[in-house]
């Protein structure tokens, strides 16, 4: 089943390159993969520990390469996210004026690569699938992007390639640090290994640098807003929504269970960085005057909350972090999708050039509003339930009346970000959709067509569902993290 989910998008990409009609093939592939994911989701047994739906295919015994796929609650959640966003991104891709086939194939490669990375139980494939997904991202920006697209493409390429290279070094260091008898590419074996406390710190720092660049941790974040501002909407949806989560996923999968001592030792550094992500980047976001840049920065800011959950180092905060990855992926994908539609119809995305769009595009305004409120953590959306768990998870451990430790102060400060995000989101919404148009746009922008409402509704509905009933995902995710702390 997982094999199907992983390979169908890649296969569809291949078929499109060979010459099959791009949009139909892409949609079919995404729907098949999505449907299969739903089956896995329904068939997943929360009560059973460990990985499920495991399928193994030995590639090379000499090299200990083993193409193994499997899911626990965490990877299942991420695969579900990847499938939903992939489907929506493909659906939102309209007519592409040149190299249409390559465009759709690239999207499928990103989606399939991300799914493969999340489903892989083997370190090699975990890494290789991510690389597979990264390359089409560069192409999408460089070839089909907007504005200063070549600079943006080079910048994101250098940053991310460097990030994944450092990550590779970190992974190799990790592998070497594991005692020989537990040394394996198999995540199931590797995860239960113990690395001597003294050896953990250098690995931790290298991984922080590598993963940190991939997920736009301050100060390695400046590629993100520029890339998202230049990328075509479906590429921004897939990268910000799904692929960027790879770094966080890897962190949860490897760094959290394997490097607990280093995490403790460097927790103040991590807290400083994540506070910078929330407060500092939040302020930068307020100063933005273009919608696409603002959204890019806001997605950088939200990484801070996810890291706060990770820094909490308990099952509550970690589960919240995982849930927030899921929720943020949905909301940012929706926001980028609507922004892409606005970009097609309006002369520019400058706040000063836009206004009163709600009159002309009520559906788009409504959907953007839902995405904006989801992103700023309005209850009812999955983002809120996740943020609650992150805040509670980070605040409670080691509570003492007399003396708050840094994690608690960080939680209190991070909470201020909730005000900051309300400020920039509502301000942007007011400028773009409310009020009277600052200048008449010719031709008058048309609203979203009927067919585009479906993918948007999918993103909204899933977010609302898990916002109202988060327990469904919590039950699946939390056992994996509880296991981390029972060893």
């Amino acid at each position: 089943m997982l094999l199907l989910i992983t390979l169908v998008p890649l296969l569809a990409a291949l078929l499109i390159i060979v010459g099959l009609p791009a949009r139909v093939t892409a949609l079919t592939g995404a729907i098949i993969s999505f449907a299969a994911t739903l089956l896995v989701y329904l068939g997943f047994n929360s009560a059973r520990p460990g990985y499920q739906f495991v399928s193994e295919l030995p590639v090379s015994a000499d090299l200990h390469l083993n193409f193994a796929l499997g899911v626990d609650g965490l990877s299942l959640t991420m695969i579900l996210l990847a499938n939903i966003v992939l489907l929506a991104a493909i659906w939102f891709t309209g007519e592409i004026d040149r190299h249409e086939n390559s465009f759709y194939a690239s999207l499928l490669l990103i989606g399939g690569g991300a799914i493969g990375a999340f489903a892989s139980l083997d370190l090699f494939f975990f890494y290789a699938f991510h690389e597979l997904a990264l390359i089409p991202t560069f192409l999408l920006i460089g070839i089909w992007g907007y504005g200063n697209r070549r600079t943006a493409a080079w910048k994101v390429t250098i940053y991310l390639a460097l990030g994944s290279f450092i990550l590779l070094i970190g992974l190799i260091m990790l592998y070497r640090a594991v005692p020989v008898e537990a040394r394996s590419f198999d995540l199931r074996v590797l995860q239960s290994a113990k690395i001597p406390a003294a050896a953990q710190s250098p690995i931790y720092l290298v991984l922080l640098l590598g993963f940190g660049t991939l997920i736009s941790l301050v100060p390695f974040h400046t590629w993100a807003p520029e890339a998202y501002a230049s990328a075509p909407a479906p590429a921004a949806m897939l990268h910000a929504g799904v692929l960027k989560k790879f770094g966080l996923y890897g962190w949860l999968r490897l760094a959290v269970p394997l490097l607990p001592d280093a995490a403790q030792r460097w927790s103040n550094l991590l807290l400083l960085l994540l506070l910078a992500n929330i407060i500092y980047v939040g302020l930068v976001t307020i100063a933005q005057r273009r919608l696409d840049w603002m959204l890019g920065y806001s997605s950088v800011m939200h990484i801070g909350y996810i890291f706060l959950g990770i820094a909490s180092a308990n099952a509550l905060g970690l589960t919240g972090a995982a849930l927030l990855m899921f929720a943020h992926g949905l909301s940012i994908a929706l926001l980028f999708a609507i922004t892409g539609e606005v970009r097609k119809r309006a002369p520019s995305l400058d706040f000063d050039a836009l206004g009163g769009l709600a009159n002309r595009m009520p559906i788009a305004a409504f959907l953007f509003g839902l995405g904006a409120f989801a992103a700023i953590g309005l209850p009812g959306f999955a983002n809120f339930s996740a943020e609650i768990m992150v805040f509670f998870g980070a605040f409670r451990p080691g509570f003492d009346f007399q003396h708050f430790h840094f994690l608690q102060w960080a939680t209190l400060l991070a909470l201020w970000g909730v005000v900051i995000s309300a400020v920039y989101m509502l301000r942007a919404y007011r400028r773009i959709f409310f009020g009277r148009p600052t200048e008449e746009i010719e031709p008058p922008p048309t609203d979203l067509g009927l067919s585009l409402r479906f993918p948007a509704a999918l993103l909204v509905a899933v977010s609302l569902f898990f916002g109202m009933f988060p327990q469904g995902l919590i039950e699946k995710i939390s056992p994996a993290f509880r296991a981390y702390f029972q060893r």
Partner: protein
Amino acid sequence: MINAVVVNSALPWVALLVPLIASALIVLFTQRARDLSALLSVAAVLVSFVCSCLIFGRANIGAAEIPWINLPGLLRVPLGFVLDQLSRTMMLVVTGVGALIHIYSLGYMRDEAGKSRYFAALSLFIFSMLGIVLANNFVMMFIFWELVGVSSYLLIGHWFDRAAAADAAKKAFITNRLGDFGFMLGILMVWGATGTVVFGEMLPRLGQITANPSFLTICVLLIFCGAVGKSAQFPLHVWLPDAMEGPTPVSALIHAATMVAAGVYMLVRVGFLVQASPAALHVIAWVGTITAVMAGLIATQQNDIKRILAYSTLSQLGYMIMAVGLASGEAAMFHLFTHAFFKALLFLAAGSVILAVHHEQDIWKMGGQGRNVFLTFVTFACGTLALIGCPPFAGYFSKDAILALALQRDPLIFAFALFTAFLTAFYMVRLFVVVFLGKPRTPEALNSRESPTSMLLPLVILSLLALIAGFTFFARHFLPLPDETHSIAPILALGAMLIGVALGVFLYRGRNEDPLNLTALRHRFYFDEFYGWLIEHTQEFLARVAAFIDRWLIDAGAVRGASGATWSFGAMLRLLQVGNLQAYAFLFGLGIIWVIYFALFR
């Protein structure tokens, strides 16, 4: 009351969820059929009201609990209900006043293009408000607390193409968020100390906080922040007058009768916590007092009929918060109860006048409306008498309860409260005289016509309630009333009221313009100007600095650093010089595999 046998029932869930379902149905299916949307919404609130009545009649009712977040040993947040007398009465007030205002809206918003949107948001509001009332734990209350905020945002910004309405909506939401920031901190701290967010489970563990008075004070004050935002207390009161940009029924329901009372309700709900800290109570009482006096003063110099009423709402909320701070939840709830009726009445009657004079809100452009819109005139008079505390109207009893309390506990606060009573009488009489008496000052005011029945019916019902809601024989069925104390407070209050009325009549009878001109009051003590300045010099300044650093230091520096210092990429780029992204990407993939191969297998 003895909780002998609690019988679980579906009624509370039905009362809560039906408005949500109506709202969802309107959004999804009946956007185009505007009358059907209105009908759905009205039907939903009526169902909720009937459920609330049934629930009210059954003392031993309970409801099933749903786990929302449940991680055993870490965090448990259920969706469950408290169904004591307090919440059952609040349910009646919310759905009862809500139903009347829905009916009134049928008339007021009759030809509105965005009618479906309006009613969907109204239903969402009823759902959210009921959620606050019923919540049995802090997180659930916070959930609905925020949802109330968003429905208020939607309704204030209903006419979103007007700049003033769009700005007011944003301002209301962000100001509320500011308060909620403190509220959430408070919730976190209480949870940190007790390990639970459920009110019922908190009580037995309260000792863990009360053992530490200064910590408790901080907790209570942070939670109070939430109430300061939602109930628009000083210094976060600035959003409420601007919120009057919304349709008038919304001002009546949300920004007078129910939502703004949520802060008071919440403080009474967690009274066990609030009353444990004398220091916090002191702060709360003074915040209420400052708000009451300040808003009363500002109200005397406003010219927009809805803004005058908005400031009077602030002032009355100040009374309620004052009562909470004086450790009497009973007095606060009593005033909340009566105020909900007469303030909704005043707003709806004001809406009726506004409609009659073709959407004019400046009181100096009205005049002589007593003849033209007689029924509105009579009902507005009832509301005014109740608000200024004239016996036997409801406001007299509930306000006196607070004044008597203040006299007993803190003479200084009592003096301010008495002064506020005088101000209330003064500005309401000013409003009344200028709008309803004298001669019409504009052609519109001369030819004004009475509103349709769907609008007048709620006015009449609310007038009756404004008359009887204060009597013990009526109110005691709904609330535990504050103990009657025999003091001189009522006499002094009557005196203050009479002086206010006399002064108001004397100054404003037969005038065509305001004889007073107090600049500071006209400009609402310059709060908006000051906040604008503050935001510009803190948040905006920091934002610009941060953006500058990000662009010119981090980005520029990092890019240069990355391209300069990385041997691998520098070398590769120089070596290849392909300049073609596709070729480069392909080589990059190959290179990675090559590196892995050599690092691991050789």
